[in-house]
């Protein structure tokens, strides 16, 4: 194999764009929401499910899912859990601060292909962050999609994200919203139990239902088993994987699973594809 390298048009891959934080909100002890504006209020041009590399000079870069819908113009949103050095520093930033952005990267949810279908969302913990992008996209293009069913599970009521929007989802006649927490508090009136307890009661139109699942790795096996008993066709299930995406452009190797680079072929995978990857879940 020989490639005529002088004929290859190369790209600058590693320079971030400097973007401004235009709003910050704290949701929980660990999670904060940021609104980010690119130069000239340029749209990010992402699909729900894609991620960006957030760059803080001195700390490096971290892959973060976009939580806003592409239908939101002029800025985009991230919701970040504080887990390491970079996210800790990011949490200290205020409105007016600047950060670096590369991306968007990876596959997203194929919203064009989902048109006309019922959408079942299964989000565990911060898995709701990328799913919110899909949810709001469907809400903003409501007539293009069938039912919107949201299952959301968190450890406890204090860890539920986007509280204002959750209230709207609950009130909306257009959305079937079910929430559960692993452990309730005395004030908690809703369901308790893991997210899979919400699945058996669903009345679904098969095979017209697309399912999007994002959550911690431990959740996937149990959710897939429950979806299997509901006889949801495997090709209608999409899952998003977490890996150590470093370069975002399919080079550095950190996110590789078998032949697949998660930053390129993922993070959103169709379940039949994911099944072939032996180290995926």
């Amino acid at each position, binding site marked *: *194999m*020989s*490639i005529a*390298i*002088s004929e*290859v*048009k*190369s*790209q*600058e*891959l*590693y*320079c*971030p764009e*400097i973007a401004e934080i235009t709003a910050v909100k704290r949701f929980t002890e660990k999670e904060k929401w940021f609104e980010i504006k690119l130069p000239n209020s340029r749209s990010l041009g992402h699909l729900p499910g894609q991620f960006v590399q957030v760059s803080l*000079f*001195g*700390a*490096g*870069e*971290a892959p973060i899912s976009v939580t806003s819908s592409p239908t939101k113009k002029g800025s985009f949103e991230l919701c970040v859990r504080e*887990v*390491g050095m*970079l*996210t800790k520093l990011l949490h200290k930033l205020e409105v007016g601060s*600047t*950060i*670096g952005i590369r991306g968007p990267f990876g596959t997203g949810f194929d919203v064009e292909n989902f048109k006309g279908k019922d959408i079942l969302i299964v989000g565990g913990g911060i898995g709701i962050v990328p799913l919110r992008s899909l949810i709001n996209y469907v809400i903003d293009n409501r007539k293009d999609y069938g039912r919107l069913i949201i299952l959301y599970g968190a450890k406890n009521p204090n860890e539920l994200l986007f509280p204002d929007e959750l209230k709207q989802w609950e009130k909306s006649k257009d959305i079937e919203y079910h929430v559960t927490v692993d452990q309730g508090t005395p004030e908690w009136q809703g369901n308790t139990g893991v997210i899979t307890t919400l699945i058996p009661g669903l009345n679904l139109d098969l095979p017209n239902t697309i399912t999007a699942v994002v959550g911690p*790795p431990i959740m996937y096996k149990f959710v897939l088993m429950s979806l299997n008993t509901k006889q949801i066709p495997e090709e209608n299930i999409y899952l998003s994987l*977490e*890996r*150590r995406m*470093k*370069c975002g*452009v*399919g*080079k*550095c*190797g*950190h996110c*590789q*699973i*078998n*032949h697949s680079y998660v930053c*390129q072929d993922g993070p959103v995978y169709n379940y039949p594809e994911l099944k072939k990857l*032996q*180290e995926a879940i």
Partner: protein
Amino acid sequence: MKKYRLNKKHLPSFIDHLKGQGTVFAPHKKGDASFSFGKVEDPNSVILNYNRTLNSVKKYFLPPREQLLSFSKEDNSFQKGLIEEEKKIFLGVHSYDMKAVLKLDYNFTQGNPEENYLLRRENSFFIGVSFNPDEFHFSQSVGIPVNDTDGFDVYLEQNTDGYTVKIINDKGEKLIGGYNELSKAKDTSSNHAKFQNKLKYNYIRLPEVFEHSWNAEVWEEVAKNCVGCGTCNLVCPTCYCFDVEDNFDLSLQSGTRDRSWDGCMLNSFAVVAGGENFRETLAERQRHRIHRKFKYISDITGEPWCVACGRCTAYCTAGISIVEIVNQLCDEYEHKYLNRPMEQPRLNAERL
């Protein structure tokens, strides 16, 4: 193909001729038992009769450490790292290392062609040299004979008193143009180098073995000896995984974003923020390394991504042999799927 003869005594003047056209890099002796590619200052210090260099010429296209950008914390600004573009002539490259460069070309141009690699790689010239395979080389098994000239501009076949100089292409023609010490090629019989080391299956048959390699016992067995130091990754001419890290200078106001070689055998390689390690055991990591060399990219390109230089085996700090691993995979495959008895002794944990 044009052929000439270069007498050994003219080699320094030949190198001087090359130096007149660009920066020349060639093997030099390093310490008592090792060789290393380096910039040629003194033509007399170049050694063309060597077994292998510790690192391949990969280091010139993907440096062990490079600055991607420099930044200032004060105003959150940055500047791209500068890449020096110069004409580079690589003299004395073995056929397997040339093939490794062609494989890196594939990796750095597919999907997102990378500017950093391509700026360094453009304007490079390669002059190959033949070698005598030692106990670690097995490149014939992966389809790369000693005198494979693919990728070279000029090729030197070593004989007792000098070299047969083969001009492979126009670039090569230009490179030797104006050099007057070349004489008419003698009709020497080609040196059919014999490999002492080889894979049990030729590379054409390896895909059938790697269809069944996932649950092989060899991964746990090799993990008993492996210490996860990552040397095999660092010396491999087709490994290109890297890490990116920000480093402040002493002002603590500015610094650089640097990338450096990384290795999938290192424990930290697949760890995500929050601590989960997606390839926690040495068996999983060895399996990943070997599959990168013989399956993942090979399934797409139809070529093994191991060029069989023998470096990972020669420099392994735990005495692990890639040939033994692949041969045991062949054995396990025959045993489990073709119902044949195990032929070779298994990798032996007590051996070391």
